[in-house]
């Protein structure tokens, strides 16, 4: 048996070096093969990167490892023991913890309660010994270099801090293996550096990390080994240093990608379509003024908490503003609700796709038509034929991958979900698009398509306000950039003078 295992080893090491062995896992869903004969061998104490487009099977694998799904065939070994009939609790007890993108924390409880949830009392005592509990929580956090008041409620924590609580929770189970699903998706660069330090600390403690990410820079920065997933298969696994960035991208998308970003032709912008004067929102935004020109992509850069989302929500009428005037095409307008904004041909693509962008249980068709349901109705009655025609056209225009327009959103990948969000606004034909993190959590291929779409929109005379946490992308796509810090504009740059570090300095308030 040992000999056979040796034959299966792709990297020529002996099997006993591996903490986790995933052998020939296959998982089928109706209509799709999510995982097709996947094998991975992960060494003790290494940081193992997994990259792949959305729908490549990364999340399915995670869920199988955590016992959420059951694999159709194949085996999983942890420390030489085969894992069968996994449930999340068994997985944790075996020393495997997963940190999901949407954290599994109870926001109304304290940090220490969250870390020791389910195991609040030690040695089967009836009452909880809070002193011991809090002390142990503090120790766990200190072991990864964090000092926090463990009595604080989780709801008061930042995303980065919540992540640390999740890591501490994993450590409290004596985790040997921690899986992180896109841990950087909502972190600022500074927070990311801290996370990397924590990961290094964990590595020194001989804890194995599986790091799933879309961001290749991160993979190169910290992962020892990287596996590339495409269409449910592992296309390549080797030492990260042996890969080039272009090679990874090519293998991920299965074709050659010349550029990460499409070229943007410079146009002179003169016609002003939107002007915001002295906008203020209670405790969030102070006296912000800016303008948007016809055909322009205006990038807004700022850390989480800089007020960027609040700013655009207020412009759109979704949140209340204390003061400030908004001019559309030179005319002062009062926008008190999203209806007002939509009537003035403004669209808002929210950063939270699932919660605020989509009817996740409804079909693609019903989502696309949602913005124009009145327009496609005659004397109240919906023209369902027209509804289907419009949806089909949008699906082919935006190359949305789906079985039919009747498919529910739930079964689409992140990139395709985002395309539906775009489609539902496109059909309503707005002039001003506000896009809050339109590329968050979607893969390289879909990102490129969205950039191209943004370009073609501006060529048709539409204007775009573009918010993103990924500075690189804002720099590459925008004609002009304003930097927000602490609810104020802290710098404005034209395309020519755009420089990465300069903008970053302004974003952190210098």
């Amino acid at each position, binding site marked *: 048996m040992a000999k056979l295992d040796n034959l299966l080893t792709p990297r020529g090491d002996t099997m006993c070096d591996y903490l986790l062995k995933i052998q020939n896992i296959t998982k089928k869903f*109706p*209509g799709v093969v999510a995982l097709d004969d996947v094998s991975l061998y992960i060494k003790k104490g290494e940081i193992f990167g997994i990259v792949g487009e959305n729908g490549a099977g990364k999340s399915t694998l995670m869920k199988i490892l955590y016992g959420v799904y059951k694999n159709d065939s194949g085996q999983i070994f942890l420390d030489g023991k085969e894992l069968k009939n996994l449930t999340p609790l068994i997985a944790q007890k075996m020393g495997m913890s997963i940190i999901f993108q949407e954290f599994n924390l109870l926001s109304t409880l304290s940090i220490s309660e969250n870390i020791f949830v389910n195991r609040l009392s030690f040695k089967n005592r009836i009452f909880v010994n809070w002193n011991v509990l809090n002390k142990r929580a503090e120790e766990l956090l200190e072991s990864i270099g964090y000092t926090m008041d463990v009595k604080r409620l989780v709801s008061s924590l930042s995303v980065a801090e919540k992540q640390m609580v999740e890591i501490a929770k994993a450590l409290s189970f004596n985790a040997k293996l921690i899986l992180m699903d896109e841990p950087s998706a909502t972190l600022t660069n500074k927070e990311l550096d801290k996370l990397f330090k924590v990961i290094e600390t964990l590595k020194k403690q001989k804890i194995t990390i599986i790091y799933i990410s879309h961001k290749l820079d991160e993979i190169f920065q910290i992962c020892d080994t990287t596996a590339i997933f495409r269409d449910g298969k592992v296309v390549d696994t080797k030492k990260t240093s042996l890969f080039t960035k272009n090679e990874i991208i090519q293998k991920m998308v299965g074709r050659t990608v010349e550029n990460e970003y499409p070229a943007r032709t410079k146009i002179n912008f003169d016609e002003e379509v939107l002007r915001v004067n002295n906008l203020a929102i209670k405790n969030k935004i102070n006296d912000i003024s800016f303008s948007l020109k016809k055909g322009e992509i205006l990038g807004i850069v700022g850390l989480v908490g800089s007020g960027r989302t609040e700013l655009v929500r207020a412009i*759109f009428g*979704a949140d209340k503003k204390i003061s400030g005037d908004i001019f559309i095409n030179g005319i002062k307008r009062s926008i008190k*609700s*999203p*209806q007002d*904004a*939509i*009537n003035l041909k403004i669209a*808002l693509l*929210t950063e939270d796709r699932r*919660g*605020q*962008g*989509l*009817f*996740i*249980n*409804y079909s693609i068709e*019903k989502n696309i038509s*949602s*913005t124009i*349901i*009145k327009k496609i*109705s005659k004397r*109240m*009655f*919906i023209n369902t034929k027209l509804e289907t025609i419009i949806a089909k056209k949008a699906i082919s225009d935006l190359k949305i991958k789906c*079985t*039919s327009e*009747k*498919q529910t959103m*739930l*079964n689409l990948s992140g990139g395709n979900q985002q395309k539906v969000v775009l489609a*539902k606004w496109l059909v309503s034909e707005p002039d001003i698009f506000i896009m809050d993190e339109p590329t968050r959590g979607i893969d390289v291929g879909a990102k490129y398509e969205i950039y191209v779409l943004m370009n073609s929109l501006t060529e048709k005379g539409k204007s775009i306000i573009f918010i993103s946490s990924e500075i690189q992308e804002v720099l590459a796509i925008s004609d002009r950039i304003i930097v927000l810090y602490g609810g104020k504009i802290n710098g404005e740059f034209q395309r020519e003078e755009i420089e990465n570090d300069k903008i970053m300095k302004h974003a952190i308030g210098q």
Partner: protein
Amino acid sequence: MNIKNNIKLYLNTIYRSYTMLLALIILIALASILSHSFLTVQNITNIFRQVSVMGCVALGMSFVIIGGSFDMSVGSTVSLTGILAISLQPIVGVFWAMAISLIVGVSIGLINGTIITSINGTQGDSFIITFGMLTVIQAVALIITKGFSVPGSNNKSYIFIGNGDIGVIPFSIILFVVSAIIMQIFITKTSHGRNIYYMGANSEVAKLIGIKVKFYKIITYMISGAMAAVAGFILTARVNGAAPKAGVNLEFEAVTAIVVGGIGLKGGEGTLVNTIIGVLIMGVISNAMNIIGISSQNQLVVKGIILIAAVCVDIRKKGIMGEG
């Protein structure tokens, strides 16, 4: 591949919409075996007559539930509007008595909806608030009647609502069926109906695409109030008299029928076809229990268990469908 998937999707939809219909057919078959008097024309019309009151309540409440809220105030709204319709007749005549009752029913909905939207209430809030309203209206009904029943109307056309027949079909059944058809067309075919679905599925998303969420929420409550008033007419016309507690438990029976019929409690799901199937299932069960001779207390036990079971099935169904 594409066609195959479409067929699969289609079969799945059929399966989901028709499981409860199948359950209804099985129930009818069972009841006919248990008692020979079950499957007679007279008994079937009887079932319809019995369910028309609760059915109207359930139709209105379905709008509220599809819209993502609850309306537990309907039981006492039926009592109050029934009392008003009967006791105002000698003073203002049949037409105005009914008109005023209908306005009262709609106004109760307006108040419910306004309170809930003004505090941006959640589904849970709406449950508690309308529950409070249930108590308030019950009390009003008791105050107006001083706790006594109101003797019936001697107006023939009013009594016709509850007891009259058109051909062989009782008028109350026609009223229920016609309301159901109009409401079903409204909610599934019109833009307003679709907006109610969008609101129920995710009111934040609905708000951000410019749907007047508050307006539609209030509308669903007003429709629920109106249908409770219609139920009040049928009830008081049939028994020819109004009692301050005549509507007690109707909200419970309506919720049971809706959940049994398969309308998801989370909102944004199901149609009135589900409601009608649920209403008929509950009607057949009550009728069968009456025929077999099960006491009304024991019947309540059965109905309560059915509600609990139906909610469990509803939740499980969602669990299986999963969050992907």
